[in-house]
């Protein structure tokens, strides 16, 4: 079988110098075939995006050769055909949409190919139908959700009738529902005979592919099946983490030594859990002090909050409807729900940058519907870290960036000691980092600087909008550990997240939203154990909870309401002592 795309000893450096000691790609030889589903994995900066851009001639190798269906990408006259055959969907949904309506954007590629209008019409209709955007064909793209925009980008590629579609981190900006949709579309593409190459650092998604290629520092360090990959000890050296299922499977093997080593999906794991020798009636869970709800002090109270964007124009849309929320002193509260369910809008009400249009919001002593309460008073009490905060950096040096808040709002101690304190809180060494350029930091470091720049105001309450979104596995883990420590120290935190595994680790309480309304509310453990209700909201319960539920039906004495791997293993070890080795 001849290769669809062949890379032959490709070396690439951005300065075009073949002798550059640290090229972005180093001597990469790979072949991709018709109908294949491969993932390209690697930490940030490993060269995976650079590799992807070689596949359709957006980048030309400094040394070596890339051929697409035997056409050399060096030959510019072939670029039209190469780009027709190799479609590409990019990371940022809104940056790849050219036209001002859905339909015209899908037509952009075929128009560039110079096809006759009747042919374009046919292809546009077919592509829009394939991604399910029929209802939106005349809408302007900035009115679509991120998931819809990504589907639109795919439609634009499909209209060119490609042989292979490259997804360059195309799911990073999507919520779980959007990701599922994208993955479903990928398998449809494969069914239609197209090859799918998927650049990602999400390991759960990688598990679905037939083949995994791992890049580290510009070189291919692994090429095989995901099953083989996740057993590798060197995964961590490459800046990758096994998916939660595989990780939990590995931890469970300490208790259940006979558990197979190559478990890849939740179903496989649940299916291979053993029964105990002496089954028992599993106990109900132990409360974490949630019963004495009446005695709690509420630091934040939101009652029947409504918010409509673009109020009074024909473009008005409702973001919150009768939303209610209570945050108790010393506890972390998570907001979950699909994109557009109102999480960000609610968070922005909690530090006063949005004021209630209807309903009541109280943050500490401040009633936010009172115009006499100034926003600057509220932000001192409740600090908000917005989504992708590093895109809002404007200072050159880390220290100045962090000092901006206290400089604006005043500070009762020397600025330097405040900045030092904030950096220590997030685990950044003051001397090592204060004079670093902000744009030379890694993704995780940038996120920590953003966090420190809010902490430097010394707010009592911390509001976090998707604190781990868009980070690679290693950075994500670092940021999670930092947040975990703050939660343990009793800081009030309200966070929104799409990552239920993160929520399970960080939050005591949880509110789930659907279309701007409260859908589920209560202690995180209670809510997550309503498996059906959680799934119905487009979310997936944490793996540890699913495993605990399954163990209970097998007769293990694991209490209900367990949602973290830590707690699960703790209980399980005791169970094994009492109930005997697994059979």
């Amino acid at each position: 079988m001849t290769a669809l795309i062949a890379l032959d000893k490709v070396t690439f450096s951005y300065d075009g110098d073949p002798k550059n000691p640290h090229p972005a790609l180093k001597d990469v030889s790979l072949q991709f075939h018709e109908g294949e589903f491969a993932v390209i994995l690697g930490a940030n900066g490993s060269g995976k995006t650079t590799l992807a851009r070689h596949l359709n001639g957006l980048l030309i190798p400094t040394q070596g050769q890339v051929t697409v269906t035997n056409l050399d990408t060096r030959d510019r006259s072939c670029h039209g055909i190469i780009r027709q055959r190799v479609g590409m969907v990019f990371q940022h949904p809104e940056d790849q949409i050219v036209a001002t309506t859905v339909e015209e954007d899908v037509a952009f590629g075929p128009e560039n190919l110079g096809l006759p209008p009747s042919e374009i019409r046919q292809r546009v209709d077919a592509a829009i139908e394939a991604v399910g955007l029929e209802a939106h064909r005349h809408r302007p793209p900035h009115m679509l959700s991120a998931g819809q925009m990504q589907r639109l980008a795919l439609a634009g590629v499909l209209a060119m009738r490609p042989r292979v579609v490259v997804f360059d981190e195309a799911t990073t900006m999507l919520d779980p529902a959007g990701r599922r949709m994208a993955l479903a579309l990928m398998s449809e593409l494969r069914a239609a005979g197209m090859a799918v190459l998927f650049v990602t650092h999400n390991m759960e998604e990688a598990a679905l592919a037939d083949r995994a290629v791992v890049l580290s520092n510009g070189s291919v360090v692994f090429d095989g099946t995901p099953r083989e990959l996740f057993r590798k000890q060197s995964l961590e050296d490459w800046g990758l983490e096994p998916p939660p299922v595989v990780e939990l499977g590995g931890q469970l093997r300490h208790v259940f030594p006979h558990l197979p080593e190559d478990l890849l999906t939740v179903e496989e794991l649940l299916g291979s859990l053993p029964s105990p020798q002496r089954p028992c009636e599993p106990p109900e869970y132990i409360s974490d002090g949630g019963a004495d709800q009446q005695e709690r002090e509420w630091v934040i109270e939101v009652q029947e909050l409504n918010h409509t964007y673009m109020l009074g124009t024909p473009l008005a849309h409702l973001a919150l409807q009768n939303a209610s929320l209570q945050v108790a002193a010393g506890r972390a509260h998570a907001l979950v729900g699909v994109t557009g369910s109102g999480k960000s809008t609610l968070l922005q009400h909690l530090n006063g940058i949005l004021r209630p249009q209807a309903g009541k919001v109280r943050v500490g002593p401040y009633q936010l519907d009172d115009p006499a309460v100034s926003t600057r008073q509220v932000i001192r009490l409740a600090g908000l870290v917005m989504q992708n905060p590093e895109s809002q950096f404007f200072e050159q040096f880390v220290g100045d960036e962090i000092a901006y808040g206290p400089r604006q709002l005043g500070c009762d101690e020397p600025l330097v000691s405040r900045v030092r304190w904030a950096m220590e809180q997030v685990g950044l060494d003051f001397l090592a980092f204060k004079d670093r350029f902000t744009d030379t930091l890694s993704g995780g470091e940038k996120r920590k600087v953003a966090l420190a720049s809010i902490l430097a105001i010394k707010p009592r309450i911390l509001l976090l909008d998707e604190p781990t979104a868009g980070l690679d596995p290693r950075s994500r883990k670092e940021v999670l550990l930092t947040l975990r420590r703050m939660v343990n120290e009793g800081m009030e935190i309200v966070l929104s997240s799409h990552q239920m595994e993160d929520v399970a680790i960080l939050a005591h309480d949880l509110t789930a939203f659907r279309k701007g309304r409260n859908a589920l509310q209560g202690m995180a453990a209670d809510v997550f154990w309503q498996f059906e209700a959680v799934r119905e909201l487009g979310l997936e319960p944490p793996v540890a909870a699913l495993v605990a539920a399954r163990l209970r039906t097998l007769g293990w004495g694991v209490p209900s309401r367990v949602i973290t791997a830590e707690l699960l293993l703790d209980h399980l070890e005791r169970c094994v002592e009492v109930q005997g080795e697994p059979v």
Partner: protein
Amino acid sequence: MSQFEFLRSVPFGQYLPVGSILHRLDPRARMVAFTIIILALTFSRSLMGLLIGCAVVLVGLRVGKIPYRFAFQGLLPPLPFLFLLAILQIFLNASPPNESILAVIGPVRITLSDLAAGAKLLIRFTGLILGIGLATYTISTGEMTQGLNVMFRPLAKMGLPAQDLVMMAQVTLRFLPLLAQTAERIAKSQASRGADWDSRPGNLIARVRQVIPVIVPLFLSSLHRAENMALAMDARAYGSSVQRTSLVELRLKAADGLLLGISFLAGAAILILK
């Protein structure tokens, strides 16, 4: 209303896809028709003509299913300014010497034609603002580029890069709402870090310092976006074929002819009737 809703104040891309008869006509016909009415309103010198012009625009809004309330909102911000201009017009108008004087304020004698001049100014600008609004609400930027593409074709034959120019215009228009959204996000984020938008420092340096936290990230993110957009366009084979084609083939129909006819007549009426 929030001080952060910048998108609200972006007049472009305010296309309202309400699907009226007007929306379905040929974009070229609409562009020419609106141009005629707007030019006629600009140059008409008679009160009667201006009133007819306003009436035509109001009918246009109704036919285009644009709510009057929404359309008139666009009038509110410049209204104080317009009144000021109208009053100036009343005072500065040079009236014919033999006209009867209605009132005397200080050294200024106010005549009927002075008042008419002020009224004309008010009506002219009302008509113009509503007319330009009508055009932006009913012509999508996509349709505009389609129309321009076809109308510029003769220029392309003369060797001008007409299609690239139209593409540039299209991408710019597509970016404006995004830019507003980004600015909104940045402003909110910096406000959360203590940036003070409410006070207005007197001296220039303090003012510049105030906007830097928004301008710098906005500029950087725009550059990133432009880079991403260029890549995405390249990846979809932009510029790889000599002759781009278009999804929409424009053909003038009877209704388009009717619109053009009506607009010519209305334009003539606005200019000629006394």
